[in-house]
C-alpha cells in the first residue's frame, strides 16, 4: 500500500484490534485508526458473563493490549466515538460529534447488538438488564448484589453463563427458553440436555417451551406469568435472547446486507475498499461452500487477522474451522466445525466426568463435533476432531467410539 494511505477500523472489539496489530506487523508506514464507541480499550468479552460478574477478574485483567501497545505501534485509538453516517463515494465517516474521518480502506468490525424481539420484552426493555459490554456487566454485577431471585429470559450461551454466575453467587435462578432445548442455535440437543441436567442439579430452574405471558412490576420486584400459567416472583430480570449483526450504520447504504454484511472469503464486502470481519460479517466459507455468521472468540480474532492481510493486498482466503466454547458451572462445552449436516452421530465418552463428545459424520468424514465435560476433559479430542475434519480424513467408527484410542494417531497415518 501507499505509505500515506489511511486504514480506518470501525469497532473496538477483538477483530478490530487484532486486525490493527496484523496490519502493523506487515506495514509500519500506513496510517491506522481504530474508532470505537466504547470508553475503554478493547477487552475480551467471555469474562463479562463469568469471572467479571463473580469478581474473580477485573477489567484490566482482560484488556487485549494496553495503551503503550497502541502508541508504540502508532495505532490511533479513538474511544467514545460514534459514527452516525458514511459516504462510500467520497470515503468519509461522520461522527456524532461532527468530526469527519477519511479512509482509503475501511474495515467494519462493529460486532453484534442484543436482539429485542418479544413484545412483552420490548415494552419493558428499559427495566431489564442485558449484556453486551463492560458497563452492562457492571450493572448486572451491582444489581445481583441486592437481588435474591433472578429470571433470565433466553437459554443461550450468555443467558446460561449468567445463570451459572448467579448460581455461584447463591442466587435463586430461573431460566425461561421458548424453544425445546437450551443453546438451540448451535448446540446439538443431546449435549444441551446434559447441560440442562447440570444446571438443575445445581439448583437452577429451567423452563423449556416457555414464553413470558405477562410482566407486572411492583416495588422493585417482578411478577412474571409464564405461558404455562405458572407465576414467579423475581427481583431481577436479565435478557439473553441472542444478538444480530450490528449493521445499523449501513441502513439504506449501497452495501449488501443479509444477516450481517455479506463478505467473500477475502473479507471483501460488495462495496469497494470496504472489508468486514467478526460478528458483523456473514462470510463465505470455502471449506463449507456456504455463507456463515459466527459469534465466537476464535473467529473474531482470526477473521480480523485475515481481513488485515487482504486489506494490505496479501490475498488470503478465510478457511478457519469454526470453534467455540462456553463455561458453565463446573463444565466446559466446546463445538468445532458444523453439526447440522450428517448421516450419523457417534458418541465418544459416557459421562460428564470423562467428557461426552458427539461426532457428526457424513460420508465417513467428521463434519463437526460437540462435547460437554468437566473442565479440561473434552478440549483435546475436540481439537483433534477439528484437525481431522480439516484434512477430510475418512474415519474408522470403532476408533471414534473407543475413548482409549488416541485420535492423534489418525493424523499421523497421513
Amino acid at each position, binding site marked *: 500500500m501507499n505509505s500515506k494511505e489511511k486504514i480506518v477500523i470501525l469497532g473496538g472489539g477483538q477483530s478490530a484490534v487484532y486486525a490493527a496489530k496484523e496490519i502493523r506487523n506487515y506495514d509500519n508506514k500506513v496510517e491506522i485508526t481504530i474508532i470505537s464507541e466504547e470508553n475503554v480499550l478493547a477487552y475480551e468479552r467471555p469474562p463479562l458473563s463469568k469471572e467479571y460478574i463473580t469478581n474473580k477478574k477485573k477489567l484490566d485483567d482482560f484488556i487485549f493490549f494496553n495503551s503503550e501497545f497502541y502508541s508504540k505501534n502508532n495505532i490511533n485509538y479513538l474511544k467514545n466515538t460514534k459514527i452516525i453516517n458514511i459516504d462510500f463515494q467520497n470515503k468519509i465517516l461522520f461522527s456524532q460529534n461532527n468530526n469527519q474521518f477519511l479512509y482509503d480502506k475501511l474495515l467494519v468490525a462493529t460486532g453484534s447488538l442484543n436482539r429485542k424481539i418479544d413484545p412483552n420484552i420490548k415494552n419493558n426493555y428499559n427495566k431489564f438488564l442485558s449484556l453486551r459490554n463492560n458497563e452492562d456487566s457492571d450493572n448486572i454485577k451491582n444489581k445481583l448484589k441486592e437481588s435474591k431471585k433472578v429470571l433470565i429470559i433466553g437459554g443461550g450461551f450468555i443467558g446460561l453463563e449468567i445463570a451459572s454466575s448467579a448460581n455461584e453467587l447463591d442466587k435463586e435462578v430461573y431460566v425461561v427458553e421458548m424453544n425445546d432445548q437450551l443453546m438451540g442455535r448451535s448446540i446439538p440437543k443431546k449435549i444441551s440436555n446434559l447441560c440442562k441436567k447440570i444446571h438443575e442439579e445445581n439448583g437452577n430452574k429451567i423452563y423449556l417451551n416457555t414464553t413470558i405471558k405477562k410482566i407486572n412490576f411492583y416495588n422493585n420486584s417482578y411478577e412474571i406469568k409464564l405461558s404455562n400459567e405458572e407465576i414467579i416472583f423475581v427481583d431481577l430480570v436479565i435478557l439473553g435472547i441472542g444478538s444480530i449483526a450490528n449493521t445499523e450504520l449501513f441502513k439504506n447504504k449501497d452495501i449488501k446486507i443479509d444477516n450481517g454484511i455479506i463478505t467473500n472469503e477475502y473479507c471483501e464486502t460488495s462495496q469497494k475498499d470496504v472489508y468486514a470481519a467478526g460478528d458483523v460479517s456473514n462470510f463465505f466459507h470455502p471449506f463449507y461452500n456456504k455463507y456463515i455468521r459466527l459469534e465466537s*472468540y*476464535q473467529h473474531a*480474532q482470526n477473521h480480523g487477522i485475515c481481513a488485515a492481510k487482504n486489506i494490505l493486498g496479501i490475498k488470503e482466503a478465510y478457511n478457519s474451522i469454526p470453534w467455540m466454547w462456553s463455561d458453565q458451572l463446573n463444565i*466446559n462445552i466446546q463445538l468445532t466445525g458444523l453439526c447440522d449436516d450428517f448421516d450419523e452421530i457417534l458418541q465418544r465418552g459416557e459421562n460428564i466426568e470423562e467428557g461426552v463428545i458427539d461426532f457428526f459424520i457424513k460420508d465417513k468424514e467428521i463434519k463437526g463435533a460437540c462435547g460437554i465435560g468437566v*473442565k*479440561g476433559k*473434552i*478440549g*483435546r479430542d475436540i*481439537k483433534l476432531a477439528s484437525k481431522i475434519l480439516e484434512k477430510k480424513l475418512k474415519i474408522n467408527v470403532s476408533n471414534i467410539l473407543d475413548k482409549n484410542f488416541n485420535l492423534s494417531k489418525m493424523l499421523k497415518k497421513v
Partner: protein
Amino acid sequence: MNNENLNWHFVQDSDGIEDEDIIRFDLDDKTFCIYKLQDGFYATDGICTHEAVHLEDGLVMDDEIECPMHQGIFNIKSGKALSPPACDDLKTYPVKVEDNKIYIQIS
C-alpha cells in the same frame, strides 16, 4: 540419583512413554506437567496461566502445548504464552533421565 542435589525429584520410569505424551507430577501443593518431545523431556507448571485447568489433558503439537479449555498455546521449552487467551508465560523446570528414570528439578 545424584544425592548432592536434593532438588531433583523422581517422577517415574521413562520406559513406554511416547512422543507427545504428558505426565502429571504432583509435589506437596504444586502440580507439574512433564512432556516427552522428540528431543527429550521437558517440564512446566501444570496449571494453565489463563484459567485453573490442568494441562495434562492438553494437546502437544511439536514443541507446543495447547490448553484443553480455551486453546491458549504455550511453548513447552520456554514456557512462553503464544496464543490468546493465554497471556502469562508458564514456568519451566529442568528434567533429566538417568538409568531410565525421569527426574524433575524443583527448587
